[in-house]
């Protein structure tokens, strides 16, 4: 969730105090410099002396010989070894939740951070078990603890899967077992958000969408910053998706478009 208060508190705390260097420290440094020699730059000159024709010839033969040996060693390798695409940076899909009578969100053992890749990747939530397609350059950070289903976790909370773009867009996802209807589930979450963050209880935009073919709703509201969220319930699990793009304070159609793109790449377990 947007949290101007957190940002403000961190900024105030971080910028507190004086950065004026004590004059005695500078004096001590300048005194030390007087007796401290600089290191010599030992860059190797390009050539010590001009090459003779015979030296050039010898160097050429040596290069050809080295290239030949390298080529031979490559062609003698077992077919397949070392040839072909390098291992994918995509995360290993985690085991699905064990089917049971009651919906559960048992954590799987994998909690590896997905590092950004040049190509799109897929993030599988170790805790909430959905998968989401991430555009190139996005990073995913799995939740460390399950969401209690009542609070309104902010971005970077330990109970959310956080996915960040390289340009500052932040999205986060949480899920919990629920017996509520989708409308009630979202209304309760909006109420919790209004209590914990500077958000209105009623979203400015509330529209029907589908997430992985299931009926969901997309909400847009201003909480000091534009926040887009969406909810869906599937197999007794309620999922909430959020997105914001600090420090923008106004509605940005591109961010909503990005949110829709992310939602289109969600697969529920």
């Amino acid at each position, binding site marked *: 969730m947007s949290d101007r208060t957190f940002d403000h508190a961190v900024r*105030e*705390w971080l910028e507190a105090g004086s950065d004026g*260097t004590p004059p005695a420290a500078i004096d001590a440094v300048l005194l030390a410099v*007087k007796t401290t020699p600089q290191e010599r730059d030992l860059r190797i000159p390009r050539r010590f002396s001009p090459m003779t024709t015979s030296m050039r010839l010898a160097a050429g033969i040596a290069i050809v010989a080295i290239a030949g040996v390298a080529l031979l060693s490559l062609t003698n390798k077992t077919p397949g070894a070392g040839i072909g695409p390098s291992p994918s940076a995509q995360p290993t899909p985690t085991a699905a939740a064990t089917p049971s009578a009651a919906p559960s969100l048992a954590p799987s053992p994998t909690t590896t951070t997905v590092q*950004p890749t040049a190509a799109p990747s897929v993030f599988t939530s170790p805790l909430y078990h959905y998968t989401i397609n991430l555009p190139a350059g996005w*990073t995913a*950070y799995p939740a460390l603890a399950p969401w209690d289903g009542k609070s309104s976790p902010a971005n*970077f909370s330990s109970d959310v899967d956080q996915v960040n773009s390289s340009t500052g867009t932040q999205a986060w996802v949480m899920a919990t077992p629920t017996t509520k209807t989708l409308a009630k589930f979202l209304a309760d979450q909006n109420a919790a958000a209004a209590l914990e963050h500077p958000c209105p209880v009623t979203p400015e935009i509330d529209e029907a969408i589908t997430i992985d073919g299931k009926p969901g709703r997309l909400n847009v509201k201003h909480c000091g910053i534009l926040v887009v969220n969406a909810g869906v319930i599937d197999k007794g699990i309620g999922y909430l998706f959020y997105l914001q793009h600090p420090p923008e304070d106004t509605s940005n159609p591109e961010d909503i478009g990005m949110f829709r793109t992310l939602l289109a790449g969600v697969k529920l377990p």
Partner: protein
Amino acid sequence: MDRDLVERARSGDQQAFADLVHQVSDSLFGIARRILRDPGLAEDVLQNALVTIWRKLPHLRDVDRFEAWAFRIVVHACYADAPRNRRWAAVVRVLPFDRADASDDYRTIVDRDELEQAFRALPLDQRAVFVLHHHVGLPLVAVAETLGIPDGTARSRLHYATRALRAAFEAADKQARVREERLA
């Protein structure tokens, strides 16, 4: 940054280096103080870093990169000196528990205490990324380049630092709410 000053200092001009020190020392001290959370230790680190900068200046190839290069040296000086010097300053504050009308002040103090403790519990490499990004204002790509680490590593370190501070801030918020309810 004065390019000519850097070039002259690089070629051994002590007066040019003295002028350079006056230009950069506050920003380098600010970085060290924020990473280490101890002005005394930051002062020691700054002195070591500045002498290192003087010694190694002839190796600096691109004078336009002086500032980033200096940031890197000061961060590494923090890494090098912090484990050896455990004289962390004790933070002692008198909290105004009896002042019912000072909830904002109380909140600010509790917030800062919680943030301070959470930050001090972070590894130095996470602190460095957080300070370079939020205090110096470097984009993450530039932070990664300055510290000589991959972009993804810089992102992860910033994320985990922010997550820890967020958790501390939320704990402070709860603490303040409980107090307000008691006073109500």
